[in-house]
């Protein structure tokens, strides 16, 4: 099981596999929900991390039912953003560099990052 959800009164607890979700994604997802919940991230059994989300009193009723879903979707989105950033972050930095201080040999720089030009 990569993500096990346990409902609790006023919130829920999720056990996440570190193999699937990286620390940055877990933190980013809990950050995104920090307007609605009080969150805690802590280590669980080896290879897993536990996230506890307790709904804030100020959390609107309409959101209460959806928080769990929202969190899981957010988590996947954040992990995907992280994956894309890993793959393309270097290109992004290259674009900015080329914009303000053009490289002598852009082709070579691209080849080094992408493997082709």
């Amino acid at each position: 099981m990569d993500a096990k959800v346990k409902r609790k009164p006023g919130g829920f607890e999720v056990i996440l596999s570190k193999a699937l979700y990286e620390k940055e994604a877990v933190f980013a997802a809990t950050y995104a929900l920090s307007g609605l919940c009080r969150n805690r991230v802590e280590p669980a059994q080896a290879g897993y991390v536990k996230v506890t989300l307790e709904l804030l009193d100020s959390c609107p009723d309409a959101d209460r039912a959806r928080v769990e879903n929202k969190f899981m979707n957010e988590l996947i989105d954040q992990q995907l953003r992280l994956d894309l950033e890993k793959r393309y972050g270097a290109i992004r930095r290259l674009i900015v560099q080329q914009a303000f201080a053009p490289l002598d040999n852009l082709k070579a720089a691209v080849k080094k990052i992408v493997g082709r030009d």
Partner: protein
Amino acid sequence: MPFRFSPVASNRMLVVNEVGEFIFLDRQTFERLVSYDLAPNTGIFLDLKGKHFVTDTAVTPVIDLLATKYRTKREFLKSFTGLHMVVVTLRCNQRCNYCHASSQPTDQQRWDMTPETAVNVVHKIMESPSEVIKIEFQGGEPLLNFEVVKTVVREAKRLNRKKNKHLDFVICTNLTLVDAPTLEYCKKEGITLSTSLDGPKEIHDRHRLMRTGEGSYDRFMQNLHFSRSILGHDGVNPLMTASQESLSHFNEIVDQYAALGFQGIFLRHVNPYGYAQNDATIQSFVYPMEDFVEAYKKALLYIIELNLAGTPLVEGYACILLSRILTPFCTGFVDLQSPTGAGINGVIYDFNGEVYPCDEARMLAKMGDRRFYLGNVNRDSYLDIFTSPVLQELIEVSCVETLPGCHSCPLQPYCGADPVRNYAIQGDLVGHRPTSDFCMKHKAIIEFLLELIDQDDPGVMDVFWSWITNRTLAEVRGEAPCSN
């Protein structure tokens, strides 16, 4: 190629590249995109390729094109501090209850800028490397210290004989004190007036009160016509502030602006600065940002209809965002920029010569928190002020590329940061996006505009472009007789 994404209300994925080109994809297509499952000769792949989200062939030229576009988008970085706000007095003959300018009674001249300070202010302004300089007189009510306004204008024009910059002057006035000599002077010197009009009488007079307690509307209207008769129809431009009561009357406010023949309206929410959050008066005009956004959306659609029915009226806020979204050019807007416009593109000089990156920072100082004080024109050099560590810090914490919640947000190319506001409301410069109403407002309105653009209704698009390019609908549509 790099891009950012986020699900939107229509249950689709919004995908935006580094320079703000965007596309909406249904979930399935998005998943195929990120799992490299789109065939290179399909229409959707080519659409993505044309917008530089993907490439199956050359990479280097694509990076070069993106870099060129990125540079164009950031051109505002070249024009350092173009907007200079000068608070010539804190005195005001009005006592608007949502005013955050810490206005003072009209008889207390110690709140006036002195001519000596004014001259020092002008010298600092004219040292700015920007080719275009706009000097905005604020208050209080600047007309109460008009001699200093004149001093600034005279001194700036004198110095500009050597500097040759493009120089603009604007006086922000409630109009209640204008008289013929003042207006004749403005006309002669090429000064325009910026004023405040919140809506029809009932709405306007609810908050915009004279110091004596009565409403200011009637006098305002009388003087608006008088001012126009001397300065010309477009010599006076109004700003509105939306209080709680206005939210349900946006259409009437819009109608009034249209009836008065103004070119545009800027639907602006009230700023909750300058008050203790539990202040009793604040309750009379604040509202949750969600309510503003809903009212804004409805009003925007109404304004579009009005335009299509033949009444040209620009909504200023949408116009700025649309320019960011739809054009490859850069759009300066001090309140929404990355890095922040405060201090970089705009700066404010208080009556006593103190310099702050923006009005909110000045207000904080009035309330005892001098966190953003940059220096004083009477004591410090231009370099001391504009390379102050405060300013550097502001820039560092206002690049959306690095802010939590912003760094992977697809709306980043259209948005900006306001660290002073973050500090004022949330207590630190970086701020907390999930609970920020600034973030909530911009997200909601930008996504709303993106959806409207995506619907591609010819009428709506014609109106949007008439705003962006400052043309009539007929011009946008290229309507002209056969000229062959």
